[in-house]
């Protein structure tokens, strides 16, 4: 029996691998959204998706090594940094819109040439 089959057969959520797979899917969706979309707001939301997937992975691994809480502490700091990042990022979006009258990231090509 292959490991993937075993992972499917075991009860959901009782092993670490399920969380790793879910976090991978979420991170991939976030990365795809960041690459696919041209709307800066949606790109910021995709970054949030990726940060959330990383948080989930940290907490899941900490549950697997449950003698300490350091993984959860890291997730806590990531949440704080994400909040700061979003506030500055949205301020930049507003400033960018005031400059270019659009929020398409294709308009940010001043450094291209």
């Amino acid at each position: 029996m292959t490991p993937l089959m075993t992972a499917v057969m075991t009860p959901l959520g009782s092993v670490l691998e399920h969380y790793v797979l879910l976090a991978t899917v979420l991170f991939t969706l976030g990365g795809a959204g960041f690459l696919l979309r041209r709307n800066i707001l949606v790109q910021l939301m995709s970054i949030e998706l990726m940060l959330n997937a990383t948080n989930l992975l940290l907490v899941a691994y900490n549950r697997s090594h449950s003698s300490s809480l350091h993984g959860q502490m890291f997730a806590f700091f990531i949440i704080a940094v994400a909040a700061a990042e979003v506030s500055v990022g949205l301020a930049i979006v507003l400033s960018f819109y005031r400059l270019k009258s659009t929020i398409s990231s294709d308009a940010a090509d001043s450094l291209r040439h």
Partner: protein
Amino acid sequence: MTPGAFLFAACSVICIVGALVTILAQNPIRGAMGLLTTITGIAGLFLALEAQFLAAIQLIVYAGAVVVLFVFVIMLLGPTAGPGRIGEEPRARYAPWFSSVLFLGVMAFAIVLVGGANTTLTAFAPTELGYGSIEAFGKLLYSDGMVPFELTTALLIVAVVGAIAVARSAPSKKPVRTIKSATRRMFGGPVEARNAARPGLLPSPINEKESTL
């Protein structure tokens, strides 16, 4: 199906559907709602992983602050906030899909490879009493995490100041309105409230002819 398995399945479906809505929605406000759905699902998964404090923080900070900030900005931008169509640029139509699928494949392959090395899955052991509680988390945060915690406060302050500095409107190029008549200048009060404490902006008798108004 045990309650734990049901919780995991429900939260996983919620997370993935929310993420798909986030990246595929034409309207950014729907994207923000998809992000909210994903965040709620991840908070549920935190509960399943016995991280109660982090689940609360996740809901307060993400659902309560970050998503609201997104909605505020979408509201400020109005109809211009969307819709950005997928694949507007022809050359960027296939590369993101390809790289995303490639990343997912490589990660799944790595997970299967690691699983094949030890052939047993890592089941979660029962936790001690107080794991993930506010008491245990607070003790760790104020002992091992003291320095990063203080640095986080500094980071948040700098982020707030930076956000204000970046988002503040540019200084206006309009000429300062001044008062020509000496009588009105003395008794009429300032034309604009912000000039009240800046008497230097009022015209001197020499250049009074050039001043506006």
